[in-house]
């Protein structure tokens, strides 16, 4: 099975009630946007969260990325709100 790990942080983690899950992706890779559409189609809570939260960021393998970037099997994906450190 070709899977990716998905992490949620801060308010996303809290509202979703989980911090991590696994999703299946095609071996050739697909965009974050495509993968996310599939996930949202079968998870109403996730769909609501993305609908209600502005400016969600994505990181791929611990580097900031865009929703147009490709995801490949084994990747670590993370979704989180804008950062507020310092």
């Amino acid at each position: 099975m070709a899977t990716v790990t998905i992490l949620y942080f801060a308010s996303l983690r809290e509202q979703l009630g989980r911090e991590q899950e696994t999703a299946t992706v095609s071996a050739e890779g697909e965009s974050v946007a495509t993968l996310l559409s599939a996930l949202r189609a079968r998870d109403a809570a996730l769909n609501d969260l993305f609908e209600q939260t502005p400016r969600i960021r994505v990181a791929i393998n611990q580097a900031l990325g865009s929703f147009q970037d490709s995801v490949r099997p084994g990747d670590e994906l993370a979704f989180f709100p804008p950062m507020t450190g310092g």
Partner: protein
Amino acid sequence: MIRVVVQTAAFDLAGEMERLSQISENVGGMSVFMGQVRAQGDGLESLTLEHYPGMTEKVLTTLAEEAGTRFSLLGCTVVHRVGTMRVGEPIVFVGTASGHRAEALQATSFLIDRLKTGAPFWKCERFTDGRKRWVEARDTDDEAAALWD
């Protein structure tokens, strides 16, 4: 010369500064910024900082390396706390050492501006009445970070 630490414990201010000041005989100036939990008159009791372990260290190290090159630093230290901190407690330490003052001062501003919006930390406020609230990102922070682009 780069030191990046993410920790729950309070940091050793004097130790961090001593280390930077003695990193080379050529240090002429050291600049430090320290951020701490500020009372806001609205009953704020504490902040809880969450981060993305692994990514945080990578981002901070990359930022420190960029500062080192861009401002000819001799030393650069970033210590960021995570976990729960009460009003008055330190959150972040940024320290830079260079031959001359301008480079150290600019590098410190650069690091704290960039860190605010680029490193995966999130603050959740807790109030004396029990409420809690995730801090919203501010446009002014994005603008400050963008000035260094």
